[in-house]
């Protein structure tokens, strides 16, 4: 049974696209058939993060409008054979998304894949509402700061009222994914704590992704972080999150500040 998963946040720059790519790759690495769909029409990024920008011919809008057939627009990942991308259009805007058209595309994708992961644009307007409209599950990407948490709260409210499932009286299963978590800043009390975030959002936690250079590097070379450096802390955190999405019980790792031998030595000197 295919699952439609929306990756959303409200706020921009929190890591939705990175998360979409990483979770998509992680689920594909497990052997599931996965498609990642870019809903950020006009400001597409997912093709770059997936490293498929040179192979885009047709896009989501073409399929929604019936200009192209779905298989023509799907781009197969070069590294994982069961990972696919449906890119957004860069030349159009979000008004080109019609509910009927998006519904048809999503229904078609449900028949072909195990996971349909929709990368939502920032904001709460048409693009974001279309991305979440047909979702069965949602990953709400949140940074440990008040503005991001409040926007996430707003998005959760929309997931509970504006999705097809909500309108039928069913539930969209929601998960919080905390990204850009900086253990050293957390230790100094400069960020919201995990407990604060979960108390405010009253939604179960899917994972905590530490702030890391790995993520930036992976985006720049166009590889999902779970593929570029599979042993790094962010990759492991994303792989664990993917396992939890599949229903596995994986103990939650709260990233802690790692103090190496040299750090301790230097600190002692400095003091």
């Amino acid at each position: 049974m295919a699952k439609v998963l929306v990756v959303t946040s409200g706020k921009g720059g929190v890591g939705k696209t990175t998360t979409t790519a990483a979770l998509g790759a992680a689920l594909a690495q497990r052997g599931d058939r996965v498609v990642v769909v870019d809903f950020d029409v006009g400001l597409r990024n997912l093709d770059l993060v997936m490293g498929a920008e040179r192979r885009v011919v047709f896009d989501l809008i073409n399929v929604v409008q019936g200009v192209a057939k779905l298989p023509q627009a799907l781009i197969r990942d070069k590294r994982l054979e069961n990972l696919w991308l449906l890119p957004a259009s860069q030349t159009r805007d979000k008004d080109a998304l019609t509910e009927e058209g998006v519904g048809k595309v999503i229904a078609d994708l449900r028949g072909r894949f195990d996971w349909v992961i929709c990368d939502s644009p920032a904001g709460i307007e048409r693009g974001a509402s279309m991305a979440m409209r047909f979702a069965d599950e949602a990953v709400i990407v949140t940074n440990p700061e008040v503005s991001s948490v409040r926007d996430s709260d707003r998005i959760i409210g929309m997931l509970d009222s504006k999705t097809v499932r909500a309108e039928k009286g069913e539930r969209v299963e929601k998960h919080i994914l905390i990204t850009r978590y900086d253990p050293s800043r957390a230790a100094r009390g400069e960020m919201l704590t995990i407990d604060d975030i979960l108390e405010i959002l009253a939604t179960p936690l899917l994972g905590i992704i530490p702030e890391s250079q790995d993520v930036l590097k992976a985006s720049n070379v166009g590889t999902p972080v779970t593929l570029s450096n599979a042993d790094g802390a962010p990759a492991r955190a994303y792989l664990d999150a993917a396992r939890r999405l599949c229903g596995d019980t994986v103990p939650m790792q709260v990233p802690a500040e790692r103090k190496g031998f040299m750090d301790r030595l230097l600190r002692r000197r400095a003091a």
Partner: protein
Amino acid sequence: MEAAAKPQRQMVRLRGRSYVAFVFVPTVPIQDWLQEIDATIARSPGFFAGRPVVVDLSSVDLSQSGIGHLLTSLQDRNIRVLGIEGVEEARLTPMMPPLLSGGRSCVVEQSAPKKAETKAETKADAKPTSLLLDSPVRSGQTVIFPDGDITILGSVGSGAEVVAGGSIHIYGALRGRAMAGVNGHTSARIYCQKIEAELLAIDGFYQTADDIDDALRGRPAQAFLQGNTMRITALY
């Protein structure tokens, strides 16, 4: 009145204040008019209970005994007459309510509560007087319930709004705005298990987050009106 005030040493402060009263304009035949009143009472018992009523006699020509009879009939129906209008003072006895003048009509204000009251009275059983929500109120959501209390099992997020005609009870943290007693209900209160509110308002009197004592933040608290000031106190 002044004569009564003078012998006392104590200062007697006399203040003017205006109130809205129902004005009855009896028409002839008085018996039919009384039947009309009876019909209203039958539709909504207690409609006139405790309400100030003024009788305007300008459209009827009643003798002193006629006026006395009318007043007794109204008294029998539990309608208390506060004053009389539209008749020469000579026709009234000292035992009757005083003659009033200078009344101004305020039709709109008077008829609106009248209608609302009739509805509330007749549909009292059908219409719920409280609203229960068993999920958190998220940022950007607004809950409005002008007919009574709102109870929320969960938190009210920053940027969310709860508006109630009566009191607001929040079994969780209040991080957004809560406005109670919006229909002029001054005894409405706001209760929450954790106060981190952006704004609290009762019957139009409000306080923003800045006004809330830091010592109360994060604690269970209630807000209520004391005269014209809002008080926020810890609950336990």
